[in-house]
C-alpha cells in the first residue's frame, strides 16, 4: 500500500508540475497542426521547419503530429485529434490517399481548414494540395539530361511501376528530354522495387544488357545510390564512357554523392516551401475576408488550384547541397 501511495503521489506531482510548466503555452494564440507519417524523417522535418517559420511571422503556434512509422490510419486519428482539440487549421501529408478521406472530410465539415502537402488525398474535400507537380519535376530533369547528353543520349530509368507520382515524373522526363535533345531516347525502364540493393542488381543487369546506355534517371528517392553502384560494377563510373546518374532525393548521402561527382545531379523537391505555403494557405482559409472561398464557402480565400512548390536540379558546387545537408532547426 505504501508503495502505491508513493507511486500515486509521485505521478500526481509530476502531472501537476507538467501542467504548470506548460500553462503559458496555452495562451490565446492560434494553433495550427501538421500531420505527417514517418515523423522525424529529414524531408518532413524540413516541411515542419517551413510551417513553423511561416507561423512565427503572424505569431501563431504550431504542432507536429503523426506516427514515426508508415501508418496512414494513425495519421487519420491524428487529424481527428487536432480537429477535436480545436486547432485553426491542419496540413496533412497523406500516407495513403484513401485512408485520409474520412478524417479530412469530417474536419472540413466542422469548419477546420485542411490542406494536403507532398502526398495528396484528391478524393477528399481538402482545400488544396501544396507540393511538387511530378510532371513538371520530371520535365526539368529531362531538360537537364537532354542538355547534358545531347542527341546521343540513351537513357535507362530506374523506377517502381504503378505509382501515379512516378508515372507523372517519367512522362515529364520523356517530354523534357524530347524538347532538349530530340535525338535522345529512353531505352529501357527497370523496376527497382524501391530497394537500394535491388536497384544495384537491376541497374547492373540493365547496363550489361544495354551497353549503349549513357544516362540513368532515378525516378524516386532510393535507387540513386544503387544506380551509381551499378555504374561502378560495370566499370563506367568515370572516364569518357561514364554513365551519368540523376537522382530524385535530398537525403544527405545523395547530396554528398552529387558533391563528389558520383551523381551528375539530383532533383530536389522543396519541402521547406511546402511547409511555408501550407501554413499561409491555412491562415488564409481560417481568416475570412470580403471575398469568400469559391470552392468551399465558409472558409477564407485560397487558390482554387493546387500549388506547385517546384524543384531544383542540384549540381556539383550548388550552395543548396550544403544547406540541405544540415538538419533544419525545429
Amino acid at each position: 500500500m505504501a508503495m502505491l501511495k508513493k507511486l500515486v503521489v509521485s505521478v500526481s506531482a509530476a502531472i501537476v508540475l507538467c501542467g504548470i510548466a506548460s500553462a503559458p503555452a496555452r495562451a490565446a494564440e492560434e494553433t495550427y497542426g501538421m500531420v505527417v507519417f514517418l515523423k522525424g524523417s529529414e524531408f518532413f522535418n524540413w516541411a515542419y521547419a517551413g510551417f513553423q517559420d511561416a507561423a512565427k511571422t503572424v505569431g501563431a503556434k504550431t504542432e507536429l503530429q503523426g506516427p514515426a512509422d508508415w501508418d496512414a490510419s494513425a495519421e487519420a486519428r491524428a487529424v481527428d485529434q487536432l480537429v477535436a482539440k480545436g486547432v485553426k487549421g491542419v496540413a496533412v501529408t497523406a500516407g495513403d490517399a484513401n485512408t485520409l478521406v474520412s478524417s479530412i472530410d469530417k474536419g472540413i465539415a466542422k469548419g477546420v481548414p485542411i490542406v494536403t502537402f507532398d502526398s495528396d488525398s484528391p478524393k477528399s474535400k481538402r482545400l488544396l494540395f501544396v507540393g511538387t507537380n511530378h510532371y513538371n519535376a520530371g520535365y526539368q530533369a529531362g531538360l537537364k539530361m537532354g542538355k547534358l547528353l545531347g542527341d546521343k543520349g540513351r537513357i535507362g530509368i530506374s523506377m517502381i511501376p504503378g505509382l501515379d507520382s512516378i508515372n507523372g515524373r517519367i512522362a515529364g522526363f520523356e517530354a523534357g528530354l524530347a524538347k532538349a535533345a530530340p535525338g535522345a531516347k529512353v531505352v529501357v525502364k527497370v523496376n527497382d522495387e524501391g530497394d537500394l540493393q535491388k536497384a544495384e542488381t537491376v541497374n547492373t543487369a540493365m547496363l550489361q544488357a544495354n551497353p549503349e546506355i549513357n544516362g540513368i534517371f532515378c525516378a524516386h528517392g532510393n535507387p540513386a545510390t544503387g544506380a551509381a553502384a551499378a555504374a561502378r560494377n560495370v566499370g563506367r563510373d568515370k572516364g569518357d564512357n561514364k554513365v551519368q546518374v540523376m537522382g530524385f532525393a535530398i537525403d544527405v548521402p545523395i547530396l554528398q554523392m552529387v558533391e563528389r561527382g558520383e551523381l551528375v545531379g539530383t532533383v530536389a523537391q522543396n519541402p521547406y516551401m511546402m511547409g511555408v505555403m501550407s501554413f499561409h494557405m491555412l491562415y488564409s482559409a481560417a481568416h475570412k475576408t470580403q471575398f469568400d472561398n469559391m470552392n468551399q464557402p465558409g472558409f477564407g480565400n485560397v487558390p482554387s488550384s493546387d500549388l506547385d512548390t517546384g524543384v531544383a536540379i542540384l549540381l556539383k558546387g550548388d550552395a543548396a547541397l550544403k544547406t540541405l545537408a544540415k538538419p533544419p532547426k525545429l
Partner: protein
Amino acid sequence: MLTTLKKKLKTGSVLQAVGLTVIILLIGITMQVMNGNFLSAANMEVMAMNLIFEGIMAIGMTFVIIGGGIDLSVSAVFPFAEIIVAKLMIEAGLPIFPAVLITLALCLGIGLINATLINVLRVHPMVITMGMMLTLRGINLAITNGKSIAGFSDDFLFLGQGTFFGINLPIVFFLFAAITLGYLLKNHPYFRQLYFIGGGERAARLSGVKVEQVKTVVYMLSALLAGIAGIMAAAQYGAAHWSHGNLSELKAIAAVAIGGADVNGGSGNVFGTVLGIAFLAVVHNAFVSSGINTFWYDAVNGLMLLIAILFSKYIERKNARAVLSAKQMKLDESGGYPKANMAEQRA
C-alpha cells in the same frame, strides 16, 4: 465492510487497478483544468476511438499472455482482414455477410496455424508469431501492390462509422467483447485453465489439462479479434491499406502488461487490460491536447510499462513470501513435523 475492502486492496491486481484508475482520473482532471476541452464530447469520442482497435486486439492478447504466450501476428492480421474483406467486396463483388464470414474464417485459420506450429514445434510463440507477422506483411503488400483499396458500400461503412444509441459501433463491440470475454475468463472453467497453463505448462499437462487444445482456442480467438478489428477499421477509414495497424501489437501487449497481467503468464484479467488501454488513450490525448512533443509519448508509455512490470514483480514476490510464511505457520501449528522428522532420521 472496510476490512473486506482492505483485504481486497492487498491483492496485487486490485491494487494495480485502483492505482491505474487514480492515475487516469488525475491526468483527466489536470487536462480539463489546463485546457478545458478534455471532457468535451468531441474529445471524448476521439479519445475513445483513438486506440479502440488496439483495445479489441488487447482483449485477445490478454488470453494469450495469461496462457504464457504472446501473439505478435495481430498487427499483420489486422490489415490482412482489411485487405481480404475489401478484395472480396470491391473486387469480387461479394455481399457484406459472406465477405465478412470468409475473412473471419481466414483469420481463424491464421490463429490455427500459429497454435499448431507452437504446439508441434515447441518453439517460443514469439518466434512463430513473428514469422507469421512478417509473412502476412509480405502477403499484404504483394496482393495490393502497396496500394490501398477503397469504394466500400455505405452499409459496410456503417460497421465502422455507425453508432448505436449514439456510441460508435467499434466502441460498442469493444465493450461487448470486454464484458463477455472478461466474464468467461473469470468464471468459465475452460478459460480458468489458462491461469494454470500460464503458471506452469508442464504441471497443467500432468494434471490432465488439454494444454494444446486450450492454446489453440486462445490463438484463434486472438486472430479472430484482430480480424474483427481490421474489418471495422476498413469500415471506419473507408479504405484497406497494408500500413494500417503498424506496431499495434506492441500497444496491445503494453495495455495488457500495464493492466496488471504477468507477461510470463499465469495472471491478468480483461478489466485490467481495459484500464491499460484507457491509460494509453488518455496519455496520448493529454500529449496532443497540451501540445507537448509526441515523441515523449512513447517514452512515457515505455516508462509506465516498466513501472507496471516492476510493480507486478513486487506483488508476485510479496505473494510468494506470504505463501511461504503461511506454510511455515501451518508447519509450526502442526508441531514442527519436519523438525521431528529430521530428529527421527538422525536417530
